[in-house]
């Protein structure tokens, strides 16, 4: 781990510059700047509505940005044609929050799907690769079950296995420990650490779980209301003087400061002439 950290500074796997995005007419991200280095685990942290999920969706081109630049593995995302991007996706793995396993396929078929669609490997080889990845995520022997027969933690692990079946250079995990009990969730954290150490992947994890973030992160990006509050190591974030970060860390609810006129306007349902968002 120390040696991977030593030479990471040389290469940026993800480079986001001044990313601005809208959902309809509402602005979600207000100019995000961040980069992820090769071989590191970057945790994107923030409360609900901070824009962390939106940022992830932009990083895997599920949404189109308003302005700014996103470079993955040295390539500008929006400059790729559809077909180029489909080919590029083989270098990416994504584990979605709810697993997103196809409910009509068995666990094994789910995990083998990228292989089946993108390679010409024979069934035998695919089966071997499937069992290999199942071993990695501790799900050996579960390939013939349907996703509906799995528990929450098993679904997440199966989704992780599907995300890494093509041995991607870059792995994205959306809320890997959300909705799981502490034991299962820390097992998943261990798994993510192991993936990075064993396979040398660069991993981006989006989470709001502090414990998990501090356990796995090399660096943390803290988002708040569509802005980057801080990017730094676990220690730097922990010791941050920023009141909003401290509020997030101490699970303190911060009262929104409301001006009385605005409050009255809200109650009567009338917009003030100088509407300032």
């Amino acid at each position, binding site marked *: 781990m120390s040696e991977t950290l030593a030479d990471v500074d040389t290469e940026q796997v993800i480079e986001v510059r001044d990313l601005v995005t809208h959902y309809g007419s509402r602005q979600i991200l207000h100019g995000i700047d961040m980069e992820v280095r090769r071989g590191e685990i970057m945790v994107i942290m923030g409360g609900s509505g901070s824009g962390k999920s939106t940022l992830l*969706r932009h990083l*895997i*081109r*599920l949404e189109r940005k308003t302005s700014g630049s996103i470079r993955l593995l040295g390539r500008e995302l929006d400059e790729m044609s*559809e*077909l180029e*991007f*489909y*080919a*590029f*996706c*083989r270098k*990416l793995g*994504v584990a*979605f*929050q*709810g697993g*997103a*396993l*196809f*409910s009509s396929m068995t666990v094994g078929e789910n995990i083998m*799907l*990228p292989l089946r*669609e*993108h390679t010409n490997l024979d069934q035998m080889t695919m089966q071997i690769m499937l069992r290999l990845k199942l071993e990695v995520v501790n799900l050996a022997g579960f390939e013939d079950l349907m996703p509906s027969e799995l528990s929450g933690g098993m679904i997440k692990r199966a989704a992780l296995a599907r995300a890494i079946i093509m041995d991607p250079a870059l792995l*994205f995990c959306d809320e890997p420990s959300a909705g799981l009990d502490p034991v299962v969730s820390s097992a998943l954290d261990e798994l993510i650490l192991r993936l990075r150490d064993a396979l040398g992947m660069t991993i981006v994890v989006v989470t709001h779980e502090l414990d998990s973030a501090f356990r796995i992160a090399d660096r943390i990006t803290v988002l708040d209301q569509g802005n980057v509050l801080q990017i730094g190591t676990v220690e730097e974030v922990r010791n941050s003087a920023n009141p909003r970060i401290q509020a997030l860390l101490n699970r303190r609810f911060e009262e929104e400061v409301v001006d009385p006129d605005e409050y009255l306007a809200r109650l009567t349902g009338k917009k003030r002439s100088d509407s300032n968002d």
Partner: protein
Amino acid sequence: MAPADESGNSAIARLENIGRSTTHGIEQFGYGASLFWQSIYWVVMGRFRSQRVRAAPVFAEAMEAGIRAIPIIGVLSMTIGIMLALQGIHALKMFGAQHQVVFGVALGITREFAPLITGILVAGRSGSALAARLATMTISQEVDALKSMGINPVRFLVAPSLLAMTIMVPALALMADFAGLLGAGLYIAPEINITLSAYMDQTIQSISVDDVMHGLTKSAIFGVLITIVGIVDGSSVTGGAEGVGRVTTSSVVHGISAIVLTDMIFVFAATR
């Protein structure tokens, strides 16, 4: 605020709503058309773009939407045939022309009733299932997962269904032709004192290949419409399980409306 102003506001709001739902409708229509062309593109070009449309899901869909629908479509087509015969004889008796019923029923079933009842049943069985499946997949991020794996969702989800439906709906309509004509014959033959084989002969003389093709071409279009409407409605889902229920219901209504409207336009164009 003055009341006049209020009512003016609500009128504008109403107009705004009409405008919004109109643009939404046009948008959905355009989306459907683009899905159709994209599906054809992937079916033809997929193999050269390493995005091959596979045969297995086409067969699975053909099995589910086609073969499994045979019993219900057979029974209902027969019923429709008998119903047409009853109505035809009742109406023609007034002119003492009940022997002409064979002609009317034969044309009615092959040109209109068999394709229509097939379309409506398939829309109810498979159009809704398609919408529900796509809606569930959208909500559980399965469609996003496909994209993130570098698999085109249109190629993977839409094209196989479209292919299966365009083949199976005309096939079902052809079967409905036979079932309907048989049902009508079972009632007509004893009623006007001819044998069943004489009825068959008269039927074959009454209809031409064009009449059958008219019905089958229509049903191929119905198959496309049912699929596209199901997919467009399904992928427009918002909210959770409740949203899935909503789009499933609306896909049946939209699907049947699309079929009936297209039917009228098609008949108008074909008979001019």
